[in-house]
């Protein structure tokens, strides 16, 4: 690795007021034309169209601004934010912050996409239905499942769909009253515990064994006639692929339960390992992670949920079918769990994913996963040389596309922990990293993921930033403790303050009330 020159970076700081505090009475962005006299004569006063008891007595307290000032305000806000494409976004492990080709963005902005409405007759939606049907086929080939739905609006929504499908399966077999326990692992994504709880299951968590895998003996000890199923992640955020996953599946199947794998971390296994081949009955993909639809606050998400044949009848309605000539939206599915969200799903995500898969082909997808894994392993080599960085569990086991590291040693040596390091990173013009899902089992964690789209230079720069902060922590910890130094704000909000309602406001109205402005 050649010597990396760390960038000098300084974020814009505009000291912007809230938009609610801006503007002047009477200022307007758009002047709406008045009603034509003929129309007014025909229908009467506009207000008369609204039932009297529904008419508001006072006008809404909205800011009054010109278009120019609105644009300026939000441009300034955007300058104070680091977008994933301005800074290297390797730090967000499990989020798969890969670069999404902009040509796919152009596709979803074509009028053919922007002008369709989900309430149109299906005959007029043949193009988008074809894309959905074919994408189902692609994802089935990648996962080994038989049928997919794109209705869920994100990963957790897809995982919730799974909890509902498992519930319906046991209900139809007359075993739901008895099978009320869903098993998951403490390193699985939190939605694998939260969504079955929402669906009415009791949740049983497995702790990791000394190698970092879910404790298989514990699983065998708790499966029973009460087991509805298991919802697990592989690889977990440790980056360790569980090589004995079939044994977990077998233990649950033998007890009469179903098996789901959460594939939010699928960027390492495309074209390499298939959920169905490991025995799973269902799985999901985060289209907005693995399949290059933009992720994070940049766009809506999409959770694709797939099942094997026996469970297909439970999928949410409508499902997209093809009779050899025409594509249909099939609502006549008496066993369906119903809807988990309105309409068919976030179509722009589906179109981007379809285009991305078509541009790569099967070999290309496998190459994506191989590159993501190699990239991460290169990053791993660089990180493991940095003082204060450790990687718990399986020291000799290869990680896949991401891994969870610990700064506990650095914290014990210097008092600089993961939060302080995170807040210092942004001074070097890159995104701060993400720590860990809850709960923190690895102390002072951080979880990077060097997706396939980052270059060797990007990876080296990222590692060099961590190395620099480690050096500072051991030589002059106050630099890190007081970071960030070059950002729009001095310190990230202490999350605990969110638990003190008197100290935070989530709306302008609440802010005014608490500040006694109104």
């Amino acid at each position, binding site marked *: 690795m050649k010597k990396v020159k760390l960038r000098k970076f300084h974020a814009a700081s505009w000291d912007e007021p809230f938009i609610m505090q801006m503007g002047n009475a009477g200022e307007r962005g758009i002047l709406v034309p008045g009603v034509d006299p003929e129309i007014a004569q025909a229908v009467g006063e506009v207000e008369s169209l609204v039932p009297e008891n529904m008419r508001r007595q006072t006008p809404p307290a909205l800011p009054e601004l010109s278009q120019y000032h609105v644009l300026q305000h939000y441009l300034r806000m955007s300058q104070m934010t680091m977008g994933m494409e301005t800074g290297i976004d390797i730090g967000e492990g499990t989020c798969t912050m890969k670069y999404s080709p902009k040509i796919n963005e152009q596709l979803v902005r074509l009028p053919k996409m922007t002008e369709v409405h989900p309430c149109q007759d299906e005959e007029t939606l043949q193009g988008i239905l074809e894309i959905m049907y074919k994408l189902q086929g692609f994802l089935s080939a990648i996962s080994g499942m038989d049928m997919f739905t794109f209705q869920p609006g994100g990963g957790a929504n897809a995982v919730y769909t799974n909890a509902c499908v498992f519930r319906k399966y046991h209900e139809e077999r007359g075993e739901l009253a008895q099978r009320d326990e869903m098993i998951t692992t*403490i390193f699985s994504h*939190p939605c694998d*515990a939260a969504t079955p*709880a929402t669906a009415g*299951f*009791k*949740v*049983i*968590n*497995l*702790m*990791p064994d*000394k190698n970092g895998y879910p*404790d298989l*003996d*514990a*699983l065998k*000890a*708790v499966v029973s006639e009460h087991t509805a199923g298991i919802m697990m992640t592989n690889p977990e955020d440790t980056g360790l692929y569980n090589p004995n996953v079939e044994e977990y599946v077998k233990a649950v199947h033998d007890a009469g339960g179903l098996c789901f794998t959460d594939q939010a971390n699928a960027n390492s296994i495309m074209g390499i390992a298939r959920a169905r081949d490991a025995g799973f009955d269902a799985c999901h993909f985060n289209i907005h992670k693995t399949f290059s639809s933009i992720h994070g606050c940049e766009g809506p998400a999409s959770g694709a949920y797939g099942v094997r044949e026996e469970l297909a009848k439970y999928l949410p309605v409508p499902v997209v079918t093809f009779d050899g000539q025409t594509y249909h939206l099939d609502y006549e599915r008496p066993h369906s769990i119903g809807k988990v969200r309105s309409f068919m799903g976030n179509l722009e995500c589906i179109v981007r994913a379809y285009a991305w898969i078509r541009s790569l082909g099967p070999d290309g997808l496998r190459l994506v996963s191989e590159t993501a894994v190699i990239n991460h392993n290169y990053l791993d080599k660089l990180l493991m040389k940095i003082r204060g960085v450790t990687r718990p569990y399986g020291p000799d086991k290869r990680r896949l596309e991401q891994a969870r590291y610990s700064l506990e040693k650095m*914290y*014990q040596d210097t*008092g600089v*922990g993961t*939060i302080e390091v*995170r807040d210092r990173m942004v001074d070097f013009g890159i995104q701060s990293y*993400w*720590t*860990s*899902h*809850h*709960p*923190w*089992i690895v*102390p*002072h964690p951080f979880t990077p993921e060097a997706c396939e789209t980052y270059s060797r230079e990007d990876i080296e720069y990222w590692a060099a930033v961590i190395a620099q902060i480690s050096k500072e922590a051991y030589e002059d*910890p*106050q630099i890190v*403790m007081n970071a960030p130094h070059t950002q729009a704000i001095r310190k990230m909000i*202490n*999350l*605990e*303050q*969110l*638990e*003190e309602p008197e100290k935070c406001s989530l709306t302008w109205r609440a802010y005014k009330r608490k500040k006694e402005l109104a």
Partner: protein
Amino acid sequence: MRKKLGLIVNPVAGIGGRVGLKGSDGPQILKMALDMGAVPESPRRAREALEKLGPAKDDIEIVTWPRAMGEEAAVAGGFAPTVMPAALKDYTTSEDTEEAARRITAHGVDLLMFAGGDGTARNIFNALGNALPVLGIPAGVKIHSAVYANSPSSAGRLALNFLTRKGRRNVREAEVMDIDEDAFRENRLSARLYGYLNVPYERSLIQSAKAGSQSNEEVAMDAIASDVITNMTDEHLYIIGSGTTTRAIMSKLGLPNTLLGIDAVFKKQLVGSDLNESRLLELLKNRKGKIVVTVIGGQGHVFGRGNQQISPAVIKSVGTENIIIVATENKLLGLNGQPLLVDTGDAAVNQMLRGYAKVVVGLHRRIVYRVSY
């Protein structure tokens, strides 16, 4: 504003450890230890903790007791402490610790640190009750009390964060336990739960930024109580073990609770308070029972520490399938993967309890956790 940190060092705590005497209670043992060449451990450990306060040295005023009871450690740690006037004997005793605790806190401190062992924690508890945040620097031979940090340096870090942080300071109730040292020297281990002290609670170690704000320990305990109560039947007698997590169950039922003892509940009514083994067995006659116990923080003991009343006979009478272990997730994770421990005094019963338990960590939430002995 400068923060005030109280400091008490029990200079004889742990002195017997290196010479194999298992503790240092009583002047004869102490003399024996010194004669055998024992060197006090606690001043060194207190200094180690204080060194971690270095970054905020100018913002912290240490208020302490003369010479070996704090002054020397504070000076060695690089501080110029405020030393309370007191006359010290050659051999300090528990009375000295208690007097120091009372007078130092009367002076007004934000946090009281003490270096010692289980006995020292008891002295602090006797003197102060649960009046202000305290933190133990471990220096004893075998510490059972959860009021101690894992190491002197982590005690220092916790204290530093607690004293320098802005906004709300989190504390949690931690167990003060002590063993009967006479019995211990005869190789019998008998530990009692004496009470609870408030210690700084560093949630950043277990708090995930992405998950947002996590409900605090009281909320978690309340959820656990809801789970236990939801699943209560009218045919079982519920034996409620000691501890703060089980206290939440009693408080949710609106029943008086014995924090340090064992109570019994039948049809959601209290049928016995602070019960001993024979009373428990009596209540279990002709009745099915369930035992609700929690985990001693930091140690992982479920049976045999602070709840010896729930004897092997009681456990056998109830049956292992009727034991409900409750603990907050943070408490379980705080064990760092160490198993839950049972030490009932009966090898066959210990063996019976060994394996995996579904620990209740919230409403309809369980963590499968290993139980060993």
